[in-house]
Structure formats: structure tokens, C-alpha cells
């Protein structure tokens, strides 16, 4: 083996092998894919949020030269509506999912009413203007709480009061008693506003159909191609799963939005089969905003209670969660399990009750967006810990510290129906963050500046989250309709090259790099000899995809277990070649040697060659080194940390300057710090964006006012700070890598950090809470509300 192979790769800040293609313009994203004879689809979308379709006249559109076909909803009733794969909380026949194209009634502005297929995308767009639709507008409701009020417009006959599900966790009786008997109770109404995930690449589909075999191919900007294949075949089209191949090319960001099955996948496949030509559809940005998934949209009433010395004894929560006009693929589980079961955060709170009322509204579907339920939980508890501290006149850092779950209490059962938190040690992360920011000095500076009429705020957020959601049996108990294991195949080719195929689907996370780092170390082979393949159902074992910070903890573990099987076989084969006892073989530094006799050895390359040729295998051994693992973890992992930031509010204008941002994150062991830091930076940016800038706004008629990037304030470089990132390391006992997950931690830790800082800055004005985003107008109004 080369010298390079003996250099340990895990833990190194290796630059990514994914990048050369992407920085030279040679990436291959969905819209870059071109097929012979390909047609282009454009969608006519409802301008009404709720309306009956009286008639649709497509004759003029069909007559436009270059138009191949125009389809409406009733054309496609031979396939089923989209499935909902996570009907959490128990459903009573009120599960409503969308069809590819609306039939009779539209329930949100932007729902597809007709699809034009044309020779190019310009003609397809032109034809949309030639379709006449006669609508009968119906009454609209967009607010998740008002949707339940008597007399509210009803979206679905089978869902009285627009209720999707009423869900509860914790203990209502003990919590009611705790609140009733507490020395101190603090109440708040907290809105977690609707957001739009906004991957820079919008979504889309390209479908082709081979009539001689009945096989579809779907190119999709997807985080989960195997899941899409399963759901589209078995549930929507009613065809064998093997009749569809799904390929995800380079995926330009996902943040949850590309996990789900969408209407365009169905109408592209349907039309490709009908026309015998490939069909491409790529959303423009306003379509992405109108009709792809949104996130959050919670309205919550919360009470926190306890003793005057700062101990929290109870938490009572009632949340209205808007899920949109129909249920997206995993929406009910996000609003319930992924939110309600972690709502006590890093604290030991003996009495907790949470009710979630999930509702239908005349809006785009809401589903998992970066963090998926955990940011909502973390925001709620961390905002309330600050309210609690302020009510008692205590320091917010100290209130957190005295309520932390203690290191000796892990694995910790929070009593809300999760499996126990795997490992944790919360105070060191808090201490490190306090030290980095210079907490005591900052408090002194804050006091000094206030005397000069300058308003500095210090915000603290201590969070815990759930990654690599598993095991499958537990998830099934939560209503999850499939598995949550992950797969990996590892093969050693004749030349010693290692090929890993994974069911994960990286789209920016650097999995090709980190997975190769791990394999290089495990097998003692050069990093460059390890290839990671993914993203095509034709070439990879079934996997559930990349989301929920699960690729390394679950998919990476599957890979490590396959590598371990390869090593065991290599030892048996080396024992045969060396005429030694298999039990005496040691695998180290890319060689297998006899215990105590390092010179009596075979290199891994020699063993790979021997196994690949396979001319003289020992009894019972198959040729080739090729192992597959389907790994179902025994538990989730629970990353945690403390973020602290400093803001300054300009009193004249309400403008906020984010002066410093410190994150101390414990994501378990770190394979590649460069990549982990990148994940945390991006996650924090999205949390800051929620706190300061972003909100998906519907007016009372269900029109999306934030319908373009001119109106939806995705922050630019000039609107965000540098991030000061540090770590504590508490390995997860759940997996052999000791990793927890880093993809969502930044987002889960950050929104409340910024809001706590702003509200801290405004405390001289009597401000106790304000809703996100903290725009200058809202800040200024809050400052003047108590005068």
C-alpha cells in the first residue's frame, strides 16, 4: 500500500471531490438534461385559492402551432392522487391528497388546472394564455387556527372544521395540576411563521416511456429517488415498481422540499406514456413558491411554570399547525412527532402536555423544511426559557443551566414518546459559547451602552434535536408508512478499486468525500481508490434518501458494516492463502497478517485480485468481495449545542445589526470539519433568515403576496455575518462512527438565538416577546407599544 493510504483521512478538512465538476460549469442539473424528441410542459395554475371549476376550454391552445397536447384534470383520473406516507396520529378517513391536475375544485392559488405540452417552453407558455377557465370563487381560509372556527370555509367534506388530526403527547392531568399550583406561570402566544425552503434550483421532472417494455424513466430533482419510485408506481400509477427507473442528476439544494412526491412527476409520466415522447417540466421560481412545499406555519399558545428559584415544573402547549390545502408526503408526522416529542429541548421538565391541531387551509402544502418540526420546538422552548428568566429576573444562561438534563441522566427519557436521548453533556457547550462571546464583559458593555441610548442585545439558545430518525419499528408506531433503515453495497474490483453504492442522495452535503474518507481508513486503501455511487434507482440498493441529517449516521453506518463484512471475508481468504487459522488473522494498514507475524501477510490488493479472479476459492466461499448491508439503527441521535449572538438595535429606525454569531455545536464525532462547518454555516443562515427576513405571506383571499424573490427576502451576503463555530464532542453510542448529524443543527439552534437577542435589547422598552421576522417596522412598533 502507498504511503498515502497510511495517512488517516477521517477528521481531515479535505476539500470536496464533488467540486471540480461544479466550479467549471460541468454539473448536470435537471434542466441540463436533454432527450431526443423531448417536449416541454407548462402549467396553467389557478388564480383563486378556492374555487369550483365550471368549465375549461382548451381548443384555442390546442390549435397553436407547436402545441402537442393540452390536458386537464379529468384526463388523468386513471391514476391515483399522490400518497401521504406518514399519516401520523391516527386518521379517520379524512386524508386528502392532491391529484396531478385539479378536478372540479381548486383549493390553493397555484394549483394546476391544465397542462400544455409543446415543442418548446416558449410555445408552451404562450398556449397557457389561450386556455379559458370559468371559475366559481369560493370562500377562503388561510389561517391554521381560524380554519377550525365555526363557519369557516370548509376545504374537504370529510374533514369537519378543516381538522386533519388532533394529537397529544405528555400528561395532560399532571400538567394542568402543575400549572394550577405553580408559584410562577408565564404565558405567551408564539407564531412560527410560514417559510419557503427556496433551494436555488427549483424542482422539476423529465419523464420518458418505452412502450415496447412499458418502462418509465423519471429524472427528478430529488432527495429520495427510491421512495419516489415506490410511491409513484405502487400508489399512483398502479404498475410494478420495476417499471420505473428514477434518476436524480445533480440536485441544486433541497432543504426538505425535494423529499416529496409532486404533481409534475405524475403529469410528466402520464403525458410521456400518452404521447410516446419525453416530457420536461421545470418550475420557474414563482411556481416553486406557489406550488412546491412550504415549511413551519404554527400558531401556539404556551404556558411555562415553576418555582421562584428558576426550576421549571411544567409546560403546557396548544399548537395549530397549518398543513395547506392537501397533505404532502410526510406532513402530518412533521407537525406531530418531529415537533411535539422534543418540545422540552435540553431541559428536565416533569409535567408536559402538548396538543397539536393540524388543519387544512387554502394554501400551498406544508411539509418538512430544514429541521422539520425541531426548529419549531426549539424556538418555542428557548423563547419561553428567556421569558421565564426575564419574569424571574434571572440570568438566561443560569436559568438554562439549572434546568439542563444532567450528564448522568443519559440515556434520557423525556416522557414525550421518543426513544431516550442517546448522549449529551449540555453545560460544557454553554460554557464554551459563553467564554467565546465573553459573556460577562458583554453584559457590562450592554449596561454601559444603555446609558448612552444604545441598545445591545445578547441572545442565548441551547438546543437539542433528532437526527437519523429510527428505528423503523418505532417510526411505524408514529404512523410512518415505510422503513427508515439505509443501505450500502461495497464492492472491491479486480484492480483493488472500491465502489460504494448508497441509498443516500447527497445534494450538497459532500457525502462522496466523507464516505470515501471513512472507507479509505477502514480498508487502508488510498482515498482516490474509493468511488461513491448514488442517485439512480437502477444502480443502487433501495434506500430512503437524504433528509433529517441521516446520511452519515444511518447510511454511513450501513457502509461501515458492509466494509466490516468485506474485512472479515478478506481475513478468511488471507488465512487460506497463508495456510493459517482465520481466527488468527489481523486486518491493519491495508494488509491482513497473521497475529504475531506481521511479515506473514497479504495486501488487501492481493486479496482483492485473488477474490475477483476466483479461480481457487476455499470451500464455501464465493468469488469477489461484495457485501451489502441494510442498517436499521436502534435509536435516533441527538445533537445539541449552544448558540449566542450579539445584536444592536438602532432605536430611531428599528434596524438590527447582527454583530457576532457564535455556535458551539456537538454533532458527535466529525469526519470532515470543513464540511461540518459548511453545514452549520448554511443552517445558521436559514435560522437567522427566519428571525430577521423571511415570511411567506398570504392575504385573506389566499393570494401569496411573497410570490417572487423580490418579495420573499432570502438574505444576500451583505445581510449575514461571519459565523464563529466551535464544538464539544460527545460521541453517539448509537452508531459505530459515533456521529450524530450536522445538516439541520444550525437551523434548529439559530432563529431563537437572534430573537432572544433582539428582545433582550428591547427589554428597556418593556418588550417581552415579538413575532418573527423582526423587521425594522415590527421592532420600532414594539419599542413604542409600551410608551
Amino acid at each position: 500500500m502507498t504511503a498515502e493510504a497510511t495517512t488517516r483521512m477521517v477528521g481531515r478538512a479535505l476539500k470536496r471531490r464533488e467540486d471540480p465538476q461544479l466550479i467549471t460549469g460541468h454539473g448536470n442539473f435537471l434542466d441540463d438534461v436533454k432527450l431526443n424528441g423531448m417536449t416541454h410542459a407548462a402549467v396553467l395554475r389557478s388564480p383563486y385559492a378556492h374555487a369550483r371549476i365550471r368549465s375549461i376550454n382548451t381548443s384555442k391552445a390546442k390549435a397553436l402551432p407547436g402545441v402537442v397536447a393540452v390536458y386537464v384534470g379529468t384526463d388523468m383520473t386513471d391514476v391515483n392522487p399522490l400518497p401521504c406516507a406518514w399519516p401520523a396520529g391516527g386518521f379517520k378517513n379524512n386524508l386528502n391528497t392532491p391529484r396531478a391536475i385539479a378536478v372540479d375544485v381548486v383549493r390553493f392559488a397555484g394549483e394546476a388546472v391544465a397542462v400544455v405540452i409543446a415543442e418548446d417552453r416558449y410555445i408552451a407558455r404562450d398556449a397557457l394564455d389561450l386556455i379559458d377557465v370559468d371559475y366559481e370563487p369560493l370562500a377562503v381560509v388561510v389561517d391554521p387556527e381560524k380554519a377550525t372556527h365555526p363557519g369557516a370555509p370548509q376545504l374537504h367534506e370529510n374533514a369537519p372544521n378543516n381538522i386533519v388530526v388532533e394529537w397529544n403527547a405528555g400528561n395532560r392531568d399532571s400538567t394542568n395540576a402543575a400549572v394550577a399550583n405553580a408559584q410562577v406561570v408565564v404565558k405567551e402566544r408564539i407564531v412560527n411563521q410560514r417559510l419557503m425552503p427556496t433551494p436555488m434550483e427549483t424542482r422539476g421532472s423529465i419523464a420518458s416511456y418505452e412502450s415496447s417494455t412499458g418502462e418509465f424513466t423519471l429524472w427528478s430533482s430529488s432527495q429520495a429517488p427510491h421512495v419516489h419510485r415506490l410511491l409513484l408506481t405502487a400508489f399512483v400509477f398502479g404498475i410494478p415498481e420495476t417499471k420505473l427507473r428514477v434518476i436524480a442528476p445533480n440536485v441544486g439544494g433541497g432543504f426538505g422540499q425535494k423529499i416529496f412526491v409532486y404533481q409534475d412527476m405524475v403529469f410528466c409520466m402520464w403525458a410521456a406514456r400518452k404521447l410516446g415522447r419525453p416530457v420536461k417540466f421545470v418550475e420557474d421560481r414563482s411556481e416553486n413558491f406557489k406550488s412546491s412545499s412550504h415549511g413551519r406555519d404554527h400558531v401556539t399558545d404556551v404556558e411555562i411554570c415553576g418555582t421562584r428559584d428558576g426550576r421549571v415544573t411544567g409546560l403546557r402547549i396548544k399548537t395549530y399547525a397549518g398543513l395547506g390545502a392537501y397533505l404532502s408526503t410526510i406532513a402530518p408526522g412533521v407537525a406531530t412527532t418531529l415537533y411535539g416529542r422534543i418540545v422540552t429541548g435540553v431541559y428536565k421538565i416533569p409535567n408536559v402536555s402538548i396538543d397539536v391541531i393540524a388543519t387544512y387551509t387554502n394554501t400551498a402544502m406544508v411539509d418538512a423544511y430544514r429541521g422539520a418540526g425541531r426548529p419549531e420546538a426549539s424556538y418555542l422552548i428557548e423563547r419561553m426559557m428567556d421569558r421565564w428568566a426575564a419574569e424571574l429576573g434571572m440570568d438566561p444562561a443560569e436559568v438554562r443551566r439549572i434546568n439542563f438534563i444532567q450528564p448522568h441522566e443519559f440515556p434520557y427519557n423525556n416522557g414525550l414518546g421518543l426513544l431516550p436521548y442517546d448522549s449529551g453533556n449540555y453545560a460544557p457547550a454553554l460554557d464554551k459559547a459563553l467564554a467565546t462571546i465573553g459573556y460577562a464583559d458583554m453584559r457590562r458593555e450592554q449596561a454601559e451602552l444603555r446609558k448612552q441610548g444604545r441598545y445591545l442585545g445578547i441572545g442565548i439558545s441551547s438546543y437539542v434535536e433528532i437526527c437519523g430518525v429510527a428505528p423503523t419499528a418505532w417510526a411505524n408506531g408514529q404512523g410512518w408508512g415505510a422503513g427508515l433503515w439505509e443501505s450500502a453495497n461495497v464492492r472491491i474490483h479486480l484492480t483493488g478499486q472500491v465502489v460504494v453504492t448508497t441509498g443516500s442522495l447527497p445534494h450538497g452535503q459532500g457525502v462522496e468525500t466523507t464516505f470515501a474518507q471513512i472507507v479509505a481508513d477502514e480498508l487502508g486503501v488510498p482515498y482516490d481508490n474509493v468511488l461513491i455511487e448514488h442517485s439512480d434507482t437502477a444502480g443502487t440498493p433501495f434506500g430512503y434518501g437524504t433528509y433529517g441529517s441521516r446520511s452519515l449516521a444511518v447510511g454511513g453506518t450501513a457502509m461501515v458494516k458492509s466494509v466490516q463484512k468485506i474485512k472479515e471475508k478478506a481475513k478468511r481468504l488471507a488465512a487460506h492463502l497463508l495456510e493459517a487459522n482465520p481466527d488468527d488473522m489481523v486486518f491493519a494498514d491495508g494488509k491482513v497478517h497473521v497475529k504475531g507475524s506481521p511479515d506473514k501477510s497479504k495486501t488487501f490488493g492481493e486479496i482483492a485480485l485473488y477474490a475477483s479472479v476466483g479461480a481457487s476459492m476455499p470451500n464455501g466461499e464465493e468469488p469477489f468481495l461484495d457485501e451489502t448491508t441494510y442498517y436499521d439503527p436502534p435509536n435516533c441521535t441527538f445533537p445539541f449545542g449552544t448558540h449566542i449572538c450579539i445584536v444592536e438595535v438602532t432605536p430611531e429606525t428599528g434596524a438590527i445589526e447582527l454583530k457576532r454569531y457564535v455556535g458551539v455545536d456537538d454533532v458527535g464525532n466529525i469526519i470532515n470539519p470543513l464540511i461540518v462547518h459548511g453545514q452549520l454555516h448554511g443552517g445558521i443562515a436559514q435560522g437567522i433568515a427566519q428571525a430577521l427576513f423571511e415570511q411567506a405571506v398570504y392575504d385573506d383571499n389566499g393570494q401569496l403576496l411573497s410570490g417572487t424573490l423580490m418579495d420573499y427576502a432570502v438574505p444576500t451576503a451583505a445581510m449575514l455575518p461571519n459565523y464563529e463555530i466551535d464544538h464539544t464532542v460527545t460521541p453517539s453510542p448509537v452508531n459505530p462512527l459515533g456521529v450524530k448529524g450536522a445538516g439541520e443543527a444550525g437551523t434548529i439552534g439559530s432563529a431563537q438565538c437572534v430573537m432572544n437577542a433582539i428582545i433582550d435589547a428591547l427589554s428597556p422598552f418593556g418588550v417581552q416577546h415579538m413575532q418573527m421576522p423582526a423587521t425594522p417596522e415590527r421592532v420600532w412598533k414594539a419599542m413604542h407599544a409600551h410608551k
Partner: protein
Amino acid sequence: MAKITVTVNGKTHTSDVEDRTLLVHYLREHLNLTGTHIGCDTSQCGACVVVVNGKSVKSCTTLAARCDGASVTTIEGLSPDGQLHPLQEGFWECHGLQCGFCTPGMIMAATDLLAQTPNPTDDEIRHGLEGNLCRCTGYHNIVRAVQYAAAKMRGEQVSSPNA
């Protein structure tokens, strides 16, 4: 229809295009230069930035017909000799990209920025790239990447920050 003659990445093309054809579609559909991306429909995101006659422009709001006689550089033409441009190198070294969708536009915008401001402050970089959105990186490493490239283009010794 318009007949246009455009030099793209040093190669001259004469094409018939519809009057309404956008430069980004001309590059992507007619010339098959798909490194230039489309991320929005309102000129906010900058994924489509290319350099026309030395200036960075958003090709999603430029008509191809207006580029008659122009010289256009896209991400594919930034390093014709196979050597990475200092910006491409900087983005790689500093982890200035994750999904990579915004990266071509970001790099092309940064070439113009550094041409005008060879020794920028972090703040100048952040403001100079205000027309380009990235959803993955939070911009921290993009700023580092541009600083890396700026130093290299000034002829300073730069070493891999992650070695």
C-alpha cells in the same frame, strides 16, 4: 427573428434567434452551455450571471438579440487552458459551494468584482455579491473564497487554508 453574431468563450457563433429569446436560453439551449443556470424569474438570484464585454450581467434579463457583436464569457470559458481560475480554485479550497447551483453565477459575478476591486474588504465582497443568492453556504466561505482568489490574483502567495 434576429440574426446575431456572438463570440462566446472565444468562439464566434452566428445564429437565428427569436426576438424574445433570452441570452440565458440562447446559451443553454442553442449553444448547450448549461453551466449558466436559472434560479428565479425576477433577476434576483444571479445564478445566470455571465460576463458580456467585460461586465457581469444577468443573462435571464438580457435579450440574445442585444448581444449581437458582443463577447460573452460563461463559466465554461473561465479556464480554457484546463487550469482553474483563481476564483474556481478559491471556491474549491475554501468550501465556497455545497450544492453548486449558484456557483457559476457567483464566480462570474466575482470576476467583475475583483476586476474593479482587486483588494476588497470582506464588506466590499459581501456588498459586491448582493446580486447573487446562495442558500447553502450562508456566504461565510464564499467571502473566504473570493479573498483567496483576490490574494492569488494580486500575485501573493496563498496556501490551502485547509491543508
